[in-house]
């Protein structure tokens, strides 16, 4: 031990043992905090792991906070097909097609496809959706093995000719049948 000169040998000898003792006591304190995790069952020291697949110990989607933004869901009956969401979306993950529907004022949304793989979950579309049909569910389980499965479709499909004739016949039935009273 390179003590400073002979006089210092004793000093460095004592200093050596003091640093040894300091190291040992600090090590003891660290292990003691570690061991308290091992043996104590107090709230702070218990394992806090959420065992994910089982719903009891991990948080299922509806236990998440109310504002949590998960995968999108569109209630197609309320959706008026106004394209507001697809205009405002930063990563344009909406694919919407609308057609003339049975009722004159209301559009029939035949294709409403949200590409979850491109979605940013930023909530701009939900903010701008005026009929309030587009909402964030709190569901986060959307992983899949292929990209196609990541596209969620909410559209009502194209209108076929028979459906148009049936609606026309129903409309005539309704006009002669004297229901004119309804607006």
């Amino acid at each position, binding site marked *: 031990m390179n003590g400073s000169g002979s006089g210092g040998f004793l000093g460095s000898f004592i200093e050596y043992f003091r640093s040894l003792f*300091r*190291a040992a006591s*600090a*090590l003891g*304190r*660290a292990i*003691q*905090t*570690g061991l308290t*995790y091992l043996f104590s069952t107090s709230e702070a020291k218990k394992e*806090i792991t959420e065992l994910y697949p089982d719903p009891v110990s991990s948080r299922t989607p509806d236990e*998440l*906070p*109310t*504002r*949590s*933004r998960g995968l999108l869901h569109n209630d197609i009956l309320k959706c008026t097909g106004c394209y507001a969401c697809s205009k*405002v979306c*930063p990563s344009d993950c909406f694919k919407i097609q609308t057609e003339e529907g049975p009722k004159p004022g209301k559009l029939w949304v035949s294709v409403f496809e949200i590409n979850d793989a491109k979605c*940013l*979950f*930023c*909530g*701009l579309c939900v*903010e701008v959706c005026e009929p309030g049909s587009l909402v*964030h569910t709190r569901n986060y389980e959307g992983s899949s093995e292929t990209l196609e499965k990541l596209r969620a479709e909410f559209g009502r499909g194209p209108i076929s000719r028979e459906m148009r004739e049936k609606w026309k016949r129903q409309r005539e039935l309704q006009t002669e049948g004297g229901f004119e009273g309804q607006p």
Partner: protein
Amino acid sequence: MSAPERLSPIQWDLGPFHALLSGVYRLRLSLDGEVIERAEVETGFTTRGVEQILTRQSWRGAIPFLDRIDPDGAVFFEWAYCLAVEQLSALELPRRAHGIRVILGELSRISSHLLSLAKVAKAAGAESAFHLLIRERERVLDLLELLCGARHALGFLLPGGVREDVTEGFLERVQEVCQQILQRIKEYNDLVTYNEAFVRRLSGRGVITKEMVARHRMTGIPARVFDREQDLRWSSSRLGYFGLKPEALESIEAITFPGDVHHRFVIRLHEVSQSAQILQVLSQKLAAGPFLAKGSAQLIVPEGEAEAEVETARGRLAVRVGSQAGRPGPAEIQFSPPSRALFDAVPQYLVGAPLQDLSLLLQSIDLLATEVDR
């Protein structure tokens, strides 16, 4: 007798994806045996051109892109942008919105500091400290999710205020979590900060001297190690931390080399408890009133240019927003992130360090590559 002919220095390039690096950049090292002789940094691997994309967005639509530059400190990028836009459009920000922004800022500062501390502990090999610090961070992320609905890229601020009001029960939760954090800091001091083995592992390494800070104009923790006032929160009036500055907590003792890795670790842990105290004070006296300025729905931004500065967890972030008449969004936006100075300092900072400390040194200055090459 001529000088002994030296072994030619070993050339070693650590590619963009290497476990020792703290981000996606290339590091060209020339090693003299085990010691790093010279280092060069090459960034630009994650350049996505966010600033060009922002010029095509609306004022409100730019917010999600701002979060994705630095997801952990998403609030700071939004805050700087919103301050600049509010200055341009002369929007009068209600006090409650400002209070919520300060709360969010302190929460993401705590979460960003905890993440950096956890990464330093992991690089030094202290796995238990890593897990315990990440557990603390989970509590803070729960708070952020309770308020903004997202854990990392929050998207909660918008020019003129915040998106929604504080969820009920949020402020009490904030006080409860801050109380827990303050208790836990004491335990981490025993387990990690003043644990002799940890102190020896960290101290004396990666020293950033005062003149290095001045030369590279570093901000954030490396600068606050020398002068605790180097903080925009206390000096800038627009950030509005009036009277929230806690008096200095217990003095920092047992620092062997000022400016080394251990000193930064202690100061960062210290700032976590400082932010926790600020949150406790602020969550009690949050001003009532509206959380959104009146004219923020139909935002009319006159032509012009504005600048704003915010103190993020990594340092000082400045933004310059330019707007043109008739454009629905920012015409031109320019960031200057705090990690820019750190990247410039890396070649000088790594010289003389042994190879085993490489990942520890890189983690201790909390570099973020996605912030620099946006």
